[in-house]
Each structure stands twice: as C-alpha cells, then as structure tokens.
C-alpha cells in the first residue's frame, strides 16, 4: 500500500542507455590524444618548481667563502626557496634557545628587504628586482644561523660574544655587498652597500643575543 507514482511502475526494465562507454584499450600511449604530453615527457618536479639544487649550493658556497669572487649571473634567477628555509632555520635555532620570535624574523626580513630594494634601486644604474634583493639577503643570513646555533649553548653577552657577533655581522654584510656589487656593477661602492646590510644583520643579531 505504499504510494508508488504511476511513472515508476512503467520503468521496470533496466536502463541500457549507451551514454558513455570507456574505450577498452586505455593505455598511457593513447592518453597522448587526450593530454598534451605523457607522463614520461613531463619535466621533473623540481625543475617545474624552479628549485635548482646546484645553484642553491653554488650560492651557499659563495656566501660561506667571503673571499671567493662572486659570479654576477647567479643572481639572475630569483630563488626564494633557499631564503625561506634559512629564515625558518634561524627561527628554529632561536626556538632552541627559548626565544619564540618567528614573527620578528619575518617582519624584520620583509621590512629590511623593502628598504634595501628602495636603496639599491636609487643607487644603481640598472634597477634591481625585489626577488633578487630578497634572495641575496636571505642567502647571506646563513652565518647568522651559525651564530644563533652557537647562542643555544653559550651566552653571547660577554666580550667573546661581542667579538663573535661583530665578526658574523661583518661576514654577512660583506658577502651580501659582494654579491650585490657583482650583480649590479657598482664598483667602488661596496662599503656604501655593506653598511645598510650590516645594520639589518645587526638587528637580527640583536634578536639572537638578547
């Protein structure tokens, strides 16, 4: 006695419509007709993402050897993966020392990059892109990570700490200015570029020390 609409009574036979029949031979080769390139033809994931480990390693070495001559062309492609990792690592080493200051690290990085971007655009003949500035400053943060790692175990507030901090600030700003000079062809102005970098890294050092 359930109410069944009269239309349903008529449709007792099963539906045999042929709206879609998948073709029986579905292989990757035939997928070429549907997609642009096959799975084998796709570029590797890292290349698609633009992460080139060899360049990252080259740039890291350039930062770590202060006397190594920088190649101006390595800064042509802006790579923000490395700097992001370095900022995170810096925050993590600060965390190990009991300072939860990721916000300060990111805020100071952003403001510092913006300031350096404006200054370098004003001082150089050719302009510079924001990504390039952020990339260089991020890479040169690496010695600061070593300093904050050191600060996890030893206190930096003695004379040795001051000397070490000053040395690391000098190292970071020297590397950054060296890369900027070679990339922007600003000979003779390395000190003028190094000083604002030193101020920026000095603020990072303040976070590490105190």
């Amino acid at each position, binding site marked *: 006695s359930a109410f069944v609409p009269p239309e349903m009574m008529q449709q007792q036979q099963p539906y045999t419509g042929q709206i879609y029949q998948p073709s029986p031979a579905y292989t990757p080769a035939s997928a070429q007709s549907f997609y642009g390139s096959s799975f084998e033809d796709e570029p590797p994931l890292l290349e698609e993402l633009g992460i080139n480990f060899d360049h990252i390693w080259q740039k890291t070495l350039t930062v770590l050897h202060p006397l190594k001559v920088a190649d101006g062309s390595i800064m042509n492609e802006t790579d923000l993966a490395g700097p992001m990792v370095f900022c995170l690592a810096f925050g993590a080493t600060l965390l190990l020392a009991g300072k939860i200051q990721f916000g300060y690290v990111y805020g*100071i990085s952003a403001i510092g990059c913006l300031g350096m971007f*404006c*200054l370098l*655009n*004003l*001082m150089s003949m050719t302009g510079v892109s924001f990504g390039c500035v952020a990339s260089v400053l991020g890479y040169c943060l690496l010695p600061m990570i070593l300093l904050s790692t050191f600060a996890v175990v030893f206190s930096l507030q003695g004379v040795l700490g001051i000397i070490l901090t000053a040395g690391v600030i000098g190292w970071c700003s020297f590397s950054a200015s060296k890369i900027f000079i070679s990339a922007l062809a600003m000979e*003779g*102005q390395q*000190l*003028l570029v190094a*000083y*604002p970098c030193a*101020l920026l890294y*000095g*603020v990072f050092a*303040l976070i590490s*020390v*105190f």
Partner: protein
Amino acid sequence: GGSAVIDMENMDDTSGSSFEDMGEMHQRMKEEEEEEAEGEAGAAEEEDGEFLGMKGLRGQLGRQVADQMWQVGKRQASRAFSLYANIDILRPYFDVEPVQVRARLLESMIPVKMINFPQKIAGELYGPLMLVFTLVAILLHGMKTSDTIIREGTLMGTAIGTCFGYWLGVSAFIYFLAYLCNAQITMVQMLSLLGYGLFGHCITLFVTYNIHFHSLFYIFWLVVGGLSTLRMVAVLVSRTVGHTQRLILCGTLAALHMLFLLYLHFAYHKVVEGILDTLEGPNMPPFQRVARDIPVVSNAVLNTTTKTVALTL
C-alpha cells in the same frame, strides 16, 4: 508616472561597450553619483526615476557602471602613483662615493669659522639616512641592554618613530622657520644638515649606553653634541641675514638638538647602575653606611645592597 514606459533617451545604448562614449557616460555617471550623494536621505527614489525610466534595469546597468568606474578609477590611481611615487626623483641625492661620505661625516663635527658668506651644504641623502638608521640601531641596542619595556607599542616601532620623527619633523620645522627668517636653505639641504648633525648623537649614545657614568655622558653631551650643534648653527648663520632672524633660527635649532640628545639618553636607557656594577664587582661588601663622595662603584654597590635588603624584608 511613466514607470511603465521605457525612457529611451535616458537609456544609453553604449552600455559600456562603445569606447568613444565611455568618457561621456563616465562624466554623467559621476554627476549622477554626486547628486545621489547629496540627496541620499530623502530623494533616492526620485533620483532613480530620473536616472532611468525603468527601475528593473537599474541593477544590470548599475553593475556595468560600477565596473567602468572601477576601471577608470584604477587607471587614474596608477597614473597618480607612477607620478608621485616615482622614487627616481630621489636618485641624484644618493649618488655618492664612500670617500665623500667619510669626509662629510668628519666635517659635521668641525664648526666653520667663516660665517660671512654662505657655506656650502651637500644636498645628499644617503649619509643622513644611514645615520638615522644607525641611531635607530643604537637606540634598540640601548633598550635591549637595559631591558626597557615599552607598554604601548614595540621597541622597533618606538625607535624608528623617534628617530625618523625627529629628523623629518625638526627639519621641516626649521625649514619653516628659515622661510620666515628669510634664510637661504632648501628642504633637502636642511634634511642633509640635520642628518649629518645626528653623527654626534650616534657617537655619544654609542659610548654612553655602554659605559654608564653620568658625568661622562654630560661631558660627551657638551663636547660632541655641542660641536655638531655649533657646526649646524654656523652654517645657518652664514645663510641668514639679520641679528634677530639668526637668533631665532639658531637658538631654536640648538635647543632642539641638544635637548633631543638629553632625551634619548634618559628616556631610552634606564640604567640601573647599582645592579649592573654589582654584577661586575668581585666583592660585595655587607651593608654599611658610607659617605656619598666615595668612588661611584662602591656607592652604587651600597645602594644596591640596601635596595635588595629592603626588597627581601
């Protein structure tokens, strides 16, 4: 009446698609918008009736009009931005060599003797900007070493606000006074002069935030602060005619500059001298009453001892 009839002359058949009529339509839309803004409260319905003969189409046309307004507004804003935010106009002021900057830094501490003809002021902004940032860094360092707590705001914001506020604000004020007193100085020159005058402040604060003796600070305040103030005053005097004008201008500048240094020392580095010296001193003598004119260290130690004893009781 007339709401059932489509008023064709009000219905613009361009409807945003014809490029040539865009400006005219935009102008009319703007006028309509202004009228609407004025008569918002009362006459909204009447405006609608005037705008279009038919109310039903207003929604659709309104959307298109809004879209056009957005496009026009965006175009105007980008044009204004490219005109005013063009930092290339500042480019000549940053074209310096390191030797020049060093020479100007040293010159900023040497008062000129010749005030009979106008002294040259370098219209450069790199040195002053770096000095202001250095002052910010020194202030931050001072605040951190003395554990200064800023209740409303952040350390960084306070330091940047103070330093940039002084540099830009006092420059503008002195430029205004210079305009009143008929002095020959431009705004960029004033910014440059005051910026280089902060070199003395940087030296003084850097030394006295680390070596905590009040008498040392006063000596530095008078000598170093005084020298940089004298230099600025001499340059301004050489560019101003008339005794009263010179007095007003230079008196104001000298007062502001010296007082700023005093303010920076006392407001941003609360030195708890006793505790700092106690931590450095090897022997802490017990509670004892000593006369005030003994050396600073043991006096400070005495003060600390009494304070700690009072606190523990």
